[in-house]
């Protein structure tokens, strides 16, 4: 009667019950919309009038869309610049703070503050700093004798780097906190053993810290790649994708097509491309991790 099978079943029922709240939310607000977006991407739909099936039409248009090409380039630039910068700086901060220097708590708070600051507020203040004529950054540059400082957000060359700087500033603290936790999990014995074998400074870092930290590094890498692909608010507030689409990124372009031009089908097709890129990037990471990630 109350055999093994029924116990296992009761466990399963309990498990599903516990999972239910988040499962329901996930299906309603993530699962179904993703499926819907996939279907919408094969239609022409302005939200108001009935959708018209166009097969792969949206995808073909994307392939020929010069602005979409530029947007892809900008997004790649953004990811390739901001992810390494975030990781290296985050790790450097974590290493520095892990040495037990004075005022540790203060620095931790200072570096983490941007993470919890409202993106919109921070972006507005940064836009002020970057103001080409009245801004603080160019005031400093001209104080150092630079007579023709960049126009930052008004220049097609400098606008994207400026947005990247803000993004890095905003995300370094998050990487730092994760790295700090990772560093504190490395057993002291390893360093002691290493010291006996004569490992010092750089070698200590390269042969003990880095490999032991690799699961954290892997996690930070995945999170920051996904986060960078999804950059939106900074662009929205600082540049509105300008000048001349120099800071238009994938998510912004999706927003533009969806909510400014009401081309939901086209926007969904672009969203599917983003989904595919992030999926492939993540899968590749998972594949590669066996070569460099060491789980203690």
């Amino acid at each position, binding site marked *: 009667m109350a055999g093994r099978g029924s116990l296992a079943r009761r466990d399963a029922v309990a498990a599903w019950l516990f999972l239910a709240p988040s499962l329901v939310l996930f299906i309603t607000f993530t699962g179904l919309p993703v499926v819907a977006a996939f279907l919408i991407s094969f239609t022409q739909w302005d*939200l108001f009038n009935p959708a018209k099936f166009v097969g792969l039409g949206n995808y073909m248009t994307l392939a020929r869309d010069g602005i979409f090409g530029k947007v892809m380039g900008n997004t790649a630039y953004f990811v390739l610049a901001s992810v390494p910068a975030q990781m290296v700086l985050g790790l450097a901060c974590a290493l520095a703070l892990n040495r037990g220097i004075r005022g540790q708590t203060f620095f931790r708070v200072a570096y983490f503050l941007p993470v919890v600051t409202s993106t919109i507020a921070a972006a507005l203040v940064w836009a002020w700093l970057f*103001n*080409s*004529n009245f801004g603080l950054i160019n005031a400093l540059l001209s104080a150092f004798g630079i007579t023709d400082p960049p126009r930052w*957000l*008004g220049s097609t060359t400098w606008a994207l780097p400026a947005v990247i700087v803000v993004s890095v500033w905003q995300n370094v603290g998050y990487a730092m906190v994760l790295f700090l936790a990772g560093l504190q999990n490395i057993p002291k014995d390893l360093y002691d053993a290493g010291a006996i074998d004569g490992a010092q400074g750089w070698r200590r870092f390269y042969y003990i810290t880095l490999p032991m930290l690799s699961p954290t590094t892997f996690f930070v890498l995945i999170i920051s790649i996904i986060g960078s692909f999804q950059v939106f608010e900074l662009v929205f507030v600082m540049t509105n994708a*300008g*000048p001349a689409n120099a800071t238009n990124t994938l998510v912004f372009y999706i927003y533009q097509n969806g909510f400014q031009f009401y081309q939901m089908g086209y926007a969904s097709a672009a969203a599917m491309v983003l989904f595919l890129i992030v999926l492939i990037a993540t899968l590749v990471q998972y594949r590669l991790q066996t070569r460099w990630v060491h789980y203690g």
Partner: protein
Amino acid sequence: MNRLLLMTAASLAALAPATAMAQTALTFAYWGDPAELPPFEEIVSTYEAAHPDVDITVQHAPWSGYFTRLDTQLAAGAGPDVFFITNVPSYAARGQLEPLDQWIADSGFPIDLYNQEALKSHSLEGALYSIPRDNDTNALYYNVDAFEEAGVAPPDGNWDWDDLREAANALTQREGSRIARYGLALEANDWPIWVRQNGGEVFDDSFAPTQYRLDQPKAVEAIQFIGDMINEDRVMPSFQESQQSGGTSQLFLSQQAAMVIANAARLGTFADAPFEWAVAPLQTGRDGTRVNRLGGAGFAMNANAQNKEAAWQFLSFLAGEEGQAIFASASASAVPAMIGSETVREAFSAPFADVFLAESENGYPLPQFANYVDITNLYIQPALDLVWSGEATAEEALAGIAGDVNARLGQ
């Protein structure tokens, strides 16, 4: 216990429709800076006082956030019943606005008192979808103190492009490589007026375009002229810089720009400025051509409004003589759109009202058609960005997008 609960529920349910039926609920949405809000508030309270059965809920947002919210609401098939709106043909083409012609005919609304040319930008394929609140007439605001200090003669009403540029030059204060005060600041969407002043045009037709014309010499010359004031003379901030600095009104108030070209709403914004200022007619083209903006934002009804009869009642008050007079007499003023009404003309008694009224005669309708927003955001704005940032000449930038724009026009 259960019975008690049931009874309470039943009596509550009985109460709810009773209160709802006594009141007609309307939602009215508009944008505006704090200084621009009083007339809207006055109209709502006046209307509610005259119609005790109507309860108007107000949705207000600043310009920057207004359309994001409105668009989302409309897309969900909801949204305010009556709202302040621009880019009317785009909304009308999506079926989001109620056509007004039948309502106007049935109620005898005096639409003839409006400037008929201005109504075109509120129409799509011959049907009217919104009634303009104002004529977005511009004028030149100038800082009198700055003129005296720089020894520049104030505008005499006949300045052409070159006079304006020369004055802007004399008024600009430089500190090393930085500009402490610009001579002039313009609104980002003002360039079509300059194109027209030079005898050029943006499209062959403002409302039903078939050809892109911004790459023609007259238009190119106008765009290059503005670009040169930004990059060669450096007497004017780029639009992007101006926006980061709080826009033209902030630049003018903080005396970081000695002249700005803006509409009558600024009369209120600048009322408490810590310096003396005045208003002059707009610059003319080099051959003396006078061109100003025609048409402004308007009031429309939601195609999905619950109670269209009540919505039209309110809309016709808003856009009627009484509503127009309230807007015209507000301190943050607007050149009234119902220009044929003597009451309304008289209500517009703001300082420099005569300058604005005279300028409103030179109105030229700006492009306004269903996919104008897409074409602007995707092609024209990015091309202009390159001119404003000095990275391309107007000729290169504007010729470069001709193919794409014409392809879109053909769709």
